[in-house]
């Protein structure tokens, strides 16, 4: 129950017709112009009756309801409302193109408002944000719309949209459930036009997709690809002829992808079932995802290769061992050629294909490296490409096993092989020696305060990284050639800057700092005020020149003011009296003024400019009327200050009234002047 504020009585009469609420006890009007919720009717010409009122949209619409005072307020709509309105339009356009219902569009708008509040729309194209909001709705509602559809409509890269979507989802903490390929089947089935059997084909395709899911084919893959494959198979199962191309155009994946999915499905045991079996039976065995099985297969292949290689090595070694033995036997059993023939035979055996390790030594010393390498390679039965330092050493060691137990031999052989095979890349040798040093060095923090710790760095290695003079010249030439355009630009820029500097209009492009103002350093309060005013530039109506005049010394003010003309004797004593004091006018530095004005100045700096302005015109009219008779051009302020100086012993007021400052007390003085004429 309403209670009257004034008398406390609860007897309040509310009159809807007049729109008043009046207290019956004291008679005070508690409410006026009550907003009513009745419906009124108005009779229109012809006897019909209409309800009075306007229709207002629930979300505020484009214009806020104006109650007849629209002409009064000149403000337009708020910028935030405008943004939301624009977003609403875009969302509804996009949504209608995708055939989304109104509820989804409203949700999308809500997402957009949330994003606005969290400042997520900044730095992103509004179209992207809107698309992301719509897609979010699609995901949460489970509509069969793909991100690809949106990107098709907007002609934007799908990954860019995806990035925006992910960012929004993360910020708004909206966890969209994972996409289920089953959602897309009805949509694609419809697009493939199966006619009456649409439902059957869809069901079959659904079963297929579920089977694929069990077989781990759908993880990490685009759902559209899976659907495409499933639909293709289902169509064939129901005697529909749909080519791969048709399916691809509907589902929007590549042909290759489709074929790959089909192959993968082929690999699963389900593919072996007949159609009827498939519809009834569900195999229990689940397969691993194809990428995992491929990985396993690769691993197996690698292992097999290694094993086979080893076996091959063993077998080949055996064969060569036998070969050597046979040759040796043959040699010994062959009738020894004597004389000239023997010499010939020896020669030929030297240059022929070598098959004994002893001859190998001879071969190695040959200057012709390629032949030697070939011979070595042939002996060990490998290709030349497979020759590596370690392999050779290992093989040599094996060959030497029978004869030389000495461990030094491989090492001795090492250098010779090296020299034959040519200089190895220096880093390799370095790395061999480096490994030792790397282990040794310490790697704690820099306690030495940033000095470069040189331990573990070999100077010679570093020197390798520096070019010598010739190389530098070549590199310079090459680099200049490549980057000539840029260099030209730089030169032009420099020339331009130099020219402008000469003309004096060069604006140094300083990097834009934030608007940090330097601290005002001033010795006195007035300096500080002056500088602050200059910086802030409070008003354009203030004549800053006059402000500057304040700071000018008293001996300068003579030049500023018109010379006192020869005055009538009457005024002389007064002027003398006045001139004895510090000639006070606007040019007088404030610091020399009495204490009276000082506190005023320090406390109310802002008022001062206005005051100056006001007092500025005053002296002029005050000086004008007395034609040439006034000696001291002091303005009204002066007199007050003069009076103040006289009355310094009097109580000091912290605040001087504006009237007083303007020279309200001077009326008497002016009057004196006037009387003088």
């Amino acid at each position, binding site marked *: 129950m309403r209670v009257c504020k004034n008398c406390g009585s609860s007897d309040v009469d509310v009159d809807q017709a007049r729109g008043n609420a009046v207290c019956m006890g004291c008679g005070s009007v508690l409410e006026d112009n009550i907003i009513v919720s009745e419906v009124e009717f108005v009779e229109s010409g012809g006897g019909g009756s209409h309800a009075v009122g306007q229709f207002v949209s629930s979300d505020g619409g484009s214009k806020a309801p104006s109650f007849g005072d629209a002409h009064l307020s000149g403000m337009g709509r708020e910028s935030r409302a405008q943004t939301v309105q624009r977003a609403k339009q875009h969302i509804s356009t996009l949504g209608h193109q995708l055939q989304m219902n109104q509820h989804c569009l409203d949700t999308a708008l809500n997402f957009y408002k949330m994003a606005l509040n969290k400042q997520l729309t900044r730095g992103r194209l509004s179209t992207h944000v809107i698309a992301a909001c719509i897609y979010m709705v699609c995901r949460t509602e489970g509509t069969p719309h793909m991100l690809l559809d949106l990107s098709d409509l907007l002609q934007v890269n799908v990954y860019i949209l995806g990035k925006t979507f992910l960012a929004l989802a993360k910020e708004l903490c909206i966890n969209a459930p*994972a996409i289920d390929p089953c959602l897309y089947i009805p949509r694609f089935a419809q697009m493939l036009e199966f006619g009456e059997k649409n439902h059957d084909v869809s069901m079959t395709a659904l079963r297929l997709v579920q089977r694929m899911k069990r077989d781990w084919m759908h993880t990490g893959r685009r*759902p559209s690809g899976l659907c495409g494959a499933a639909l293709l198979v289902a169509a064939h199962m129901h005697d529909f002829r749909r080519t791969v191309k048709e399916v691809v155009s509907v589902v929007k994946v590549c042909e290759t992808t489709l074929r790959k999915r089909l192959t993968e499905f082929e690999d699963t045991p389900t593919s072996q079932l007949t159609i009827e079996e498939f519809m009834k039976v569900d195999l229990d065995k689940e397969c*691993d*995802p194809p990428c995992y099985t491929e990985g396993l297969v690769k691993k197996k292949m690698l292992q097999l290769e290694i094993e086979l290689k080893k076996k091959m090595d063993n077998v080949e070694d055996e064969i060569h061992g036998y070969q050597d033995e046979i040759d040796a036997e043959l040699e010994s059993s062959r009738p020894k050629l004597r004389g000239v023939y023997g010499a010939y035979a020896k020669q030929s055996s030297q240059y022929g294909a070598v098959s004994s390790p002893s001859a190998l030594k001879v071969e190695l010393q040959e200057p012709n490296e390629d032949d030697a390498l070939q011979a070595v390679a042939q002996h060990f039965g490998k290709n030349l490409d497979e020759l590596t330092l370690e392999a050779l050493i290992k093989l040599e060691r094996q060959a030497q096993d029978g004869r030389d137990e000495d461990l030094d031999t491989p090492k001795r052989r090492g250098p010779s092989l090296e020299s034959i095979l040519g200089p190895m890349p220096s880093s390799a040798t370095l790395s061999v020696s480096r490994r030792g040093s790397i282990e040794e060095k310490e790697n704690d923090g820099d306690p030495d305060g940033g000095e470069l710790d040189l331990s573990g760095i070999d100077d010679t290695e*570093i020197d390798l990284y520096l070019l010598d003079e010739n190389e530098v010249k070549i590199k310079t030439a090459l680099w200049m050639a490549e980057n000539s355009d840029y260099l030209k630009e730089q030169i032009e820029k420099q020339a331009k800057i130099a020219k402008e500097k000469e003309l004096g209009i060069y604006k140094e492009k300083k990097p834009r700092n934030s608007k940090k103002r330097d601290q005002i350093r001033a010795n006195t309060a007035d300096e500080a005020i002056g500088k602050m005013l200059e910086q802030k530039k409070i008003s354009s109506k203030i004549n800053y020149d006059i402000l500057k005049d304040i700071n000018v010394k008293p001996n300068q003010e003579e030049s500023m003011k018109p010379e006192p003309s020869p005055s009538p004797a009457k005024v002389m004593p007064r002027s003398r009296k006045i001139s004895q004091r510090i000639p006070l006018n606007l040019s007088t530095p404030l610091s020399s003024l009495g204490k009276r004005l000082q506190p005023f100045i320090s406390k109310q700096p802002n008022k001062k400019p206005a005051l100056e302005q006001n007092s500025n015109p005053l002296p002029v009219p005050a000086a004008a009327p007395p034609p040439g008779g006034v000696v001291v051009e002091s303005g009204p302020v002066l007199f007050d200050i003069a009076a103040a100086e006289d009355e310094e012993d009097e109580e000091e007021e912290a605040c001087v009234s504006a009237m007083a400052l303007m020279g309200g007390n001077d009326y008497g003085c002016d009057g004196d002047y006037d009387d003088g004429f």
Partner: protein
Amino acid sequence: SESRAEPETGASNIVSTVNLGCPLDLKFIALQARNAEYNPKVGVYVHKIREPRTTALIFSSGKMVCTGAKSEEQSRLAARKYARVVQKLGFPARFLDFKIQNMVASCDVCFPIRLEGLVLTHQQFSSYEPELFPGLIYRMVKPRIVLLIFVSGKVVLTGNQVQHTHTHAQ
């Protein structure tokens, strides 16, 4: 799905930054050093060394980014080598604020992973978008690491915590 051999791990990349403490004339260095390129438009110069196999981006302000090392010590050593090169060319390079920015490691758990199940149970951490990327992006809060989990069982971890955190996360 049986799990086979032990999961194999290894850090594959480490990114670090260091401040050499003096402004550099990039053109001069680029022309004097081997395996270095200078791109004036970008204003940065790229230098590679073979041991440890790393790449460094050096800026004219003296700051340097070193990538490609396989361990923290290697990254530090490589950064010091670059600094030494710069020093040899006559600039008073120092070694200030060496900081490891990011480390990437990969490992294999050797069994297939069900990503949909993972995204259902760990919704607030994981983000799985098969249309965009085949892996699941899992942002672990403590230690602060992002994992890319794939269905084949391979996991890629990246973050700027210390090496032992990577092993802990596994």
